[in-house]
């Protein structure tokens, strides 16, 4: 009997979690949005970028560069969008070199890339204008 009392809430939580996971992706995101949980750019960052560039954008010494006040993050938006679309390798960043390679993330949608770059450009001590979905679409078309 005692066991059941413990198991039931777990079971409920399990079902809830399962049905949430089963939701189509866009619905999942809008569900988070209406609850005023972190912006979608942050979620994309956490899913695809955080492992290498770390939660605070400080990177990993000698391996993955920081996203804090670099000319790549703050500078020309076309160049920045291309880092995400095409990746980057063996390039010096603010005078240091990094052994890892930045994989292309062209599987992200224009909207997702715009959102994650806007997130990066307005966090980690960065203050630069947002990136629009339209900007990403144009750069991708030129590729």
């Amino acid at each position, binding site marked *: 009997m005692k066991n059941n009392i413990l198991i039931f809430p777990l079971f409920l939580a399990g079902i809830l979690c399962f049905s949430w996971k089963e939701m189509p992706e866009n619905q999942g995101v809008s569900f988070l949005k209406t609850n005023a949980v972190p912006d979608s750019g942050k979620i994309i960052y*956490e*899913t*695809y970028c*955080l*492992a*290498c560039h*770390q*939660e*605070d954008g*400080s*990177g*990993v*010494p*000698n*391996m*993955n560069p*920081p996203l804090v006040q670099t000319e790549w993050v703050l500078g020309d938006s076309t160049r920045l969008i291309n880092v995400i679309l095409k990746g980057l*390798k*063996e390039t010096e960043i603010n005078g240091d*070199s*990094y*052994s*890892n*390679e930045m*994989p*292309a993330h062209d*599987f992200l949608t224009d909207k997702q890339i715009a959102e994650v770059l806007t997130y990066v450009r307005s966090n980690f001590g960065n203050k630069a204008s947002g990136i629009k979905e339209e900007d990403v679409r144009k750069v991708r078309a030129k590729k």
Partner: protein
Amino acid sequence: MKRYFILGTVALFFCFTPSGETPTKPSAKVKADADNGGLVLPKGFGGLVVSEGVGKARHIAVGANGDIFVRLSKLKDGKGTVVLKDENGDGKSDASSAFGNFAGTGIALTDKYLYASSDTSVVRYAMKNGSVDEASKETIVTGLELYGEHGTKSIALDDKGHLYVTFGAPSNACQEKNRTKGSKGMDPCPILDWHGGVWQFDANRKNQKHADGLRYATGIRNIVGLDWNKATGELYAMQHGRDQLTTLYPEMYNPEQSAELPSEEFLLLKKGSDFGWPYCYHDRFQSKKVLAPEYGGDGKVQARCEGKDKPIMAFPAHWAPNALLFYTGNQFPARYKNGAFICFHGSWNRAPLKQGGYFVAFVPFKDGKPSGDYEVFAEGFAGGPEIKQPNDAKARPMGLAQGPDGSLFITDSVKGKVWRVIHQ
């Protein structure tokens, strides 16, 4: 702990019997710093800071006269190897110089030669009265391919005239597109022809190319720490396991699982060993090699991984073992003799979970195999109890060397701090 104490005491007793060796003590002038140089060490040990910072330090070697040689991953004033001298004998460096216009990781010292590697070559210098004779520089291995990921070359010498060089794979898991979600693993993995292993060269022949070497062991993603075990006459190494199981396969691995998988592996390398990368990774919870998801694995099935060589010990994931040293000195208590010290540089691929590693471990050995679990030997490098981001670490242990009196030297990759650990 208590058991080790008793073991230690018994062992120490044998030390003093005529058949044992006499313990060497550090000179009386060498004293531990009041705070042990910021390190936390087992009872009876003390630490001192030899140098506050030599640059971006990598591996280290100490000569018979006590001179310290540190390789740098970035040139400092145009030089890649720093020499630290202790002229007044108090254990602290009081004179430093530098030589060689190439950065890199590897260093190996004999009474006759100092070998040093860049990411594309291995050179050696003759030693003259304990000093490097710069004019005697000879290129031993040359023309190696330059690549960023896992491109550093670590080196080791055996007692038969061979030089071992690591060729890390320029890849995480041999995907068609490296570290890209949805990209398949190449099968067979062409990287293994020239990388993902350790190559053996003639330690005394000049201008050898990669193709002149023998692929000694394969199926290894990346090695930074390796050492020849003089007691057993075998080569041992530490493998860095693969990254990013959750970013590449979120439907199979959650961030917690990805932070704990796969193992960092302690390997005994024999001629012809194959440890299974990229097809396999080691899971220390299941205590076996399993098929990687890039090759159709589900986290459980072994398939072609069944026959691959196993590690002699498995460590938690992503700790980045960057140096391995078999202790042959007589200064430390006898239970340390022929055991292994391992520098865990510290993780990054555990994020968003807190990071791990950032300490020096000790593994007791008997008959060429670990005879007990690993112990934390030296910690406190990073500063603070928890490291969330690698960049927060004040220091990261990187290189290990043994001094002529049996002291242990440790380098740090952030500022190039050098510590010496003594037994009092």
